[in-house]
């Protein structure tokens, strides 16, 4: 099968859906003539033109609200935020309108809307590095999707476009991958493992709420998202040599969450590490820890270990950023700790 980068996979999903459904449109800053800041929408303006691919002014609340209005009236907009950090500028439209309209209208409002945003720390300091999933996981009425591999990205993106609800798809900048036609624009993390880069050509969907066991194991369950999936897999590979067998689970969608797959694994391994890039306090790792600690209470042989970003705005200096954001050694140490008692 073909190897695609994650950026390529997302682009292919968007293009295929736009070809088969004329109601799908793309909006965002520099997504058109410029092909997107990370070149994810490369070639789409050329193919679909300005009535399907909208280059917006820098007006996040405005174009987010327009996406909602378009969704309510028959279109299926994909809204790109250039960085996830800028979503706060449109927070009211996302949280108070998009997520709540179906309920407030007693089910009349259909809001088939995809929000795409690249996130993750890449040396650009506090306003271009955030991981925003916890804010939206805490916002009922929307789905939250976190694809860690090109295969997942394509299938989840197609599902997101076809679903009649607002879906947030968070893409990690360091996972976009160098194979993108953007060339140097796409960033890559050295630790990225190779799994999942085979992507079928035809359109396919991946259902929401189905976690993927990226690696089976028996001693400890590592639940990880986005780039932490890759760091966890790398750690698991290393630990195997020491005789430690890690199961790595990628929830793929945080809302809905596949509790069953997670709890099943926990009942088997009795030890859990959660690894996410968002800030620890009130974050995704806390939510997962809460679920596991309550629902697998009798199965835990040790406290869940949270590996998440420290509770701070992301600092600029590389050593500091690296300390704040979980690295392979943080995951490895957590596995050791959770196996200790």
């Amino acid at each position, binding site marked *: 099968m073909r190897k695609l980068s994650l950026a390529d996979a997302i682009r292919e999903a968007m293009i295929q859906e736009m070809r088969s459904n004329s109601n799908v449109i793309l909006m965002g800053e520099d997504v058109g003539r410029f092909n997107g800041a990370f070149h994810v929408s490369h070639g789409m303006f050329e193919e679909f033109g300005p009535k399907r691919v909208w280059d917006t002014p820098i007006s996040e609340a*405005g174009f987010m609200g327009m996406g909602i*209005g378009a969704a309510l009236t*028959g279109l299926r907009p994909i809204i790109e935020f250039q960085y996830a950090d800028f979503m706060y500028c449109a927070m*009211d439209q996302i949280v108070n309108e998009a997520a709540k309209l179906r309920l407030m209208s*007693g089910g009349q409002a259909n809001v088939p809307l995809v929000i795409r945003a690249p996130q993750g720390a890449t040396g650009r300091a506090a306003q271009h590095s955030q991981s925003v999933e916890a804010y939206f996981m805490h916002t009922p*009425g929307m789905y939250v999707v976190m694809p860690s591999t090109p295969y997942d990205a394509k299938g989840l993106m197609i599902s997101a476009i076809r679903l009649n609800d607002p879906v947030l798809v968070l893409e990690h900048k360091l996972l976009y991958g160098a194979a993108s036609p953007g060339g140097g624009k796409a960033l890559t993390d050295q630790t990225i493992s190779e799994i999942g880069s085979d992507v079928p050509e035809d359109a396919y969907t991946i259902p929401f709420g189905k976690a993927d066991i990226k690696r089976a194991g028996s001693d400890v369950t590592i639940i990880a998202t986005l780039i932490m999936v890759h760091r966890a897999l790398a750690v698991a590979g290393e630990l195997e040599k020491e005789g430690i067998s890690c199961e790595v689970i990628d929830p793929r969608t945080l809302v809905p969450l596949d509790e069953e797959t997670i709890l099943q694994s926990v009942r088997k391994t009795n030890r859990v590490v959660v690894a996410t890039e968002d800030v620890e306090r009130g974050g995704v790792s806390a939510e997962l820890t809460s679920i596991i600690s309550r629902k697998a209470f009798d199965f835990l042989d040790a406290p869940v270990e949270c590996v998440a970003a420290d509770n701070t705005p992301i600092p600029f200096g590389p050593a500091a950023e690296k300390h704040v954001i979980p690295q392979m050694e943080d995951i490895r140490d957590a596995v050791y700790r959770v196996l200790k008692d």
Partner: protein
Amino acid sequence: MTIRKPEDVIEPFNFEGFDSALLKTLYLRMVRAREFEEKLYYLFLTIKMPGTMHQATGQEAVAVGVASVLNADDYVTSTHRGHAHCIAKDVSLNSMMAEMFAKRNGACKGMGGSMHLCDFSKGMLGAFGIVGAGIPIATGAALSSIVRGTRQVAVSFFGDGAINEGVFHESLNMASLWKLPVIYVVENNQYALSMPNELESAVTDLSSRGCSYNVPGRTVDGNNVLAVYNAARQAVEDARNGKGPFLLECVTYRVRGHARFEQPNYRPKEEEELWKQYDPILRFKQAATTAGILSESDLKAIDQQVEKEIEDSIAFAQSGEDVGALDYKQFIYSGQMEGGVE
């Protein structure tokens, strides 16, 4: 510039081009809106009603004048003060009243209440409880009309307070850039809660505030339903023909307090009393009967019809089942993919 006096704003009634059927419809809608809210006012005083409400009493000509030029499938977004907009867009009184009572047969199945009334089958996309929130949403509906090639027009109603929200600016710029068919109707009732225009807006000539985006505008007597109708008709026609957005300021007055029971002690009683004399329904009645276009009995018949409709709507509402504790669960997500099951 302080609060505008009626004499600075009023335009004479010009019946040219209005036949009696249309006039009756305009009157019917205004009276419906008025009586619906006045009945609610009474209900809130006398029985235990859930939630709150904001009355547009005295402002009905704006909603009715604008919405009456729209096609059934044109879009409207509204505000926390949205009953009149819904009624003007022909949302059923029954479903609205039932919603106010938080009944399952309400417009929003009892999930939204007064501040979230909507009826998608009538193009009424929602009253928004967040000031200004409907502005970009209507703009997006207009963009959608362009993409789908349907020639539908979108109207966003909002207040003089809402005009200072950032989304107004962002929306007008994009609507103008892309010549979207959207009419921005600023319903200038001269107060945003306690704030009179001149304390909230550096430029109180609100129809001129499209200047930053090359959006043309016009100010009309918002208590003259014909003046509003004519201005809206022109704007809608232009928008439908690809001429882009328009900013229509309708000057009116919020006769009641901001919300249920709120006493507007931040403004002089005389001001209120003066404006009450320029009541849009009163003025319409006088003008139409004086001009001999509608008779007292025409109007009376409509009054009676509305009275009955309102009573029926209450009966309808009271016959509905109360919202159940778990009803909401079905409305959070569709969970459905386009065209069917996931």
